[in-house]
């Protein structure tokens, strides 16, 4: 089983976002792997190991399109356990979801993975598009917003559950496919490869951290840097960002001292009860 995991670096979501003069100022931010992509890497590692921490069978390749220093995030993913990494030089301003998907598409054709596993959404752009566009451009099936993956022993299909508005939807999907993951994919029993792990297998309730051993091992792993041009991707963006603006601030509220006061305010002032 070879799994390709596209990963985006995103600005730390816990830092206050600076929005001024029509743009977002990311100069002082710190960068990290998009949380959903980290979850996708964890899921890919589980699908290729003989139970928690077991021997790796198959290959997990992480890929990012970004500036040169995205190598720091890729190294972290190698330290988590991914086998190798590819960094495709790219500048956010020259990308949109379609272009990201087209670049990834050419890489998929070259790498021939059995599965592309990725986050459902990048927590900066919040587009929730790349996986679906990628699947369309490859003519592959797609399984989005996954809460669980059970890979069949023959590696040819998977039974998945998806988090949908009305509850949980179960689907069967043939490989190769594009799958995008939701938060719950890192649950203890959310992901399993029938060929490698018994039904009783369990993992931590979260993504793994890079161990010291992992960090040492990562130093010897391949991190290849290439350009989109070398993959033969032509064309430009389909969606242009015009400007950013800070959302209107909510007017400051008040602290109430008691339930009585709260009920009085809701009834007489806000008139909502």
């Amino acid at each position, binding site marked *: 089983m070879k799994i390709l995991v596209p990963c985006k670096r995103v*600005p730390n*979501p*816990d830092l206050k*976002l600076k929005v001024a003069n029509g743009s977002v100022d990311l100069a002082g931010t710190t960068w990290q792997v998009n949380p959903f992509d980290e979850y996708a890497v964890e899921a890919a590692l589980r699908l290729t190991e003989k139970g928690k921490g077991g021997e790796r069978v198959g290959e997990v390749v992480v890929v990012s399109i970004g500036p040169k220093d995205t190598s720091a995030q890729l190294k972290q993913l190698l330290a988590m356990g991914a086998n190798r990494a590819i960094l495709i030089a790219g500048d956010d301003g020259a990308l949109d*979801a*379609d272009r990201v998907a087209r670049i990834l598409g050419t890489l998929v054709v070259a790498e021939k993975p059995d599965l592309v596993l990725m986050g*459902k*959404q990048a*927590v900066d752009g*919040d*587009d*929730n598009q*790349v996986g*679906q*566009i990628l*699947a*369309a*451009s490859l003519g592959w*099936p*797609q399984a*989005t*917003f996954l809460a669980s993956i059970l890979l069949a022993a023959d590696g040819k299909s998977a*039974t998945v559950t*998806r*988090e*949908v*508005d*009305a*509850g*949980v*939807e*179960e689907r*069967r*999907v*043939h490989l190769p496919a594009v799958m995008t993951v*939701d*938060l*719950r994919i890192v649950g203890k029993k959310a992901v399993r490869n029938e060929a490698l792990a018994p039904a009783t297998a369990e993992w931590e309730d979260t993504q793994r951290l890079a161990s010291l051993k992992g960090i040492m091992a990562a130093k010897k792993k391949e991190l290849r840097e290439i350009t989109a041009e070398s993959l033969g991707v032509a064309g430009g*963006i*389909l*969606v*242009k*960002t*015009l*400007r950013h*603006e*800070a*959302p209107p601030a*909510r007017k400051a*509220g008040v*602290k*109430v001292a*008691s*339930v*009585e006061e*709260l*009920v009085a305010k*809701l009834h007489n002032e*806000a008139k*909502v009860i």
Partner: protein
Amino acid sequence: MSGTATLVLLETTTSNLRSASLPAISAARKLAQVNGGPVVGVVIGSGIAAAAQDAARYVDKVLCCDNAALAAALAETWAPVLVAAIKKIDAAALVASATSAGKDILPRTAGLMGAGMASEIVAVIGAKAFRRPTYAGNALTDVEVLTPVVVATVRQTEFPPAAPAASAGTVEALPPGPIDALGSEFVALHASKSARPDLTEAKVVVSGGRGLKDAQNFKVLEELTDLLGGALGASRAACDAGMVPNDLQVGQTGKVVAPELYFAVGISGAIQHLAGMKSSKVIVAINKDPEAPIFQVADYGLCATWESTVPPLIAQIKTVKAAG
């Protein structure tokens, strides 16, 4: 070049238009004002003739793609139908509400067509320009789609539910063309049963967080919810801990709500949670920690435990209601 029609994907049961699609119709009408053409709905499914008639009350025309192999909303089979619909009416735009189906199917449709897409728009600025939240709602971003056909999903809370049009539109059959699910198969929907209104449409939402500690304690929030005729919501922490089903999660990656009245009980107010409820009209926070960030967005903050405040709150609201 493309024409002037605005196409809107309308989700249905076999007999009815789903209310989740009403905001998309409002957005489509706005776009139609700038595009100058008609609003055309497209309904897809199996045995949906009655639903197509229901949907026609809202739009100039409905394209109905009714086929047994289209019963489940699979992006693999539905996206090509949407492409066929766009071509048939030479549409300038395709929109849908940002439901789980809309978010799954529209990007695939855009991908098949090489069309640019704007996700979860909150305003129509022009025929190809839209405003949308980014960075968990910490920025509003204006984007321009550069392709002849425009694709967009619509944030349901930011467009009013559409009312029926003055006169009903016509229904026309749309042949599906070849249907290939690429091996994907719908197995089952494990629906969470609830007699309460939909989270995204409720006028009151009562949400609980990790501070509730366990599932049993949500009972008291449910009582408050039902007293106010609202919907129950939760933070990620409460969902992850199994206190409530995951589809109650409110936030950047859960449901986006904007009710008249939102209660955040035992919720700290992480940005990912705020992203899903910041547009609520009135926000009430009950939290024992005076420093909790939720108080920064709350109109009324009560710094106390839920144990000591929610039961008397229920009692006093009952009294107020009884007094009319």
